[in-house]
């Protein structure tokens, strides 16, 4: 298994909250797709039903953290400085996917954009833009 794969798997397995939500990830080369399988406990609005907006935000933040762990070995987990989330469509009771793009990985700050979708990649349900305090290990 490649180093990136190992870091990703150990990161997601070590975070209790990622397990609580049921987040998984697939890695193809350097492209990672995070997967949030639908489960009853992630529903926010039971009438529609719709996935809780907070869960979608949390999932996208976790996607950004996972993508950072793939990009470079870190001395410690990156700390989230701020996030800005836009909700575009209701999260239906389906599997949700997310991909993150690292716009810049500096010595201290990383800028990451994330997009989440369900059946149609070109119709995202939510986006996140986040700033993270990072500590890449010196290699």
């Amino acid at each position, binding site marked *: 298994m490649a180093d990136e794969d190992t870091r990703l798997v150990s990161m997601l397995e070590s975070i209790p909250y990622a397990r609580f939500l049921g987040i998984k990830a697939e890695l193809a080369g350097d492209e990672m797709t995070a997967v949030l399988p639908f489960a009853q406990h992630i529903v926010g609005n039971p009438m529609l039903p719709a996935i809780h*907006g907070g869960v979608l935000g949390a999932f996208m933040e976790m996607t950004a953290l996972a993508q950072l762990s793939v990009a470079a070995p870190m001395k410690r987990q990156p700390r989230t400085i701020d996030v800005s989330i836009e909700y575009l469509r209701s999260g239906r009771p389906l599997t949700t996917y997310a991909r993150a793009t690292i716009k810049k990985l500096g010595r201290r700050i990383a800028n990451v954009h994330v997009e989440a979708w369900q059946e149609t990649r070109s119709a995202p349900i939510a986006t996140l833009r986040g700033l993270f305090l990072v500590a890449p290990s010196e290699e």
Partner: protein
Amino acid sequence: MSDNEQTRMIATAMNEGSPQARALGFSTLEIGEATAILKVPYRPEIVGDPETGVIAGGVVTTLLDHASGQAVHAALTTWVSIATLDLRIDYMRAAEPGLDVFARAHCYKLTRSVAFVRAVAYDRDPNDPVAAAQATFMLDSSAGKKPGANLKPPRDAGAKTGGVD
């Protein structure tokens, strides 16, 4: 039924009827006058950094979103469906491991279509927050949608622009 009783009922329904709120153990401590204070109890399953035992940022995100929604309901005189349009959160410091986290949200402006909310999350003192949030909500977001609407394919499914990249 007074406005306050109605708002309290909505808060209870939002905490107990929402599976995610129930899974995280949300409760509303105070609600009224366009303001809501909610609590999430600390427990090991919702930790984000196993090295420090600090609660995950995502849990704080969900608590702030939920509290902000209740603040909107507390500002409205009659119930309408609402949906978060956007949510911006600054994480100022890590919550202290082992402590419950609170969120205090205030809906400071309502227009015909949009509600504006500010919120803070804290563990001991609201003046020393863990996180601060600014959110907007769409009012009457489910207009025309029937219960179970999300079980059907979305209306804009046909809006797919060409091939999938």
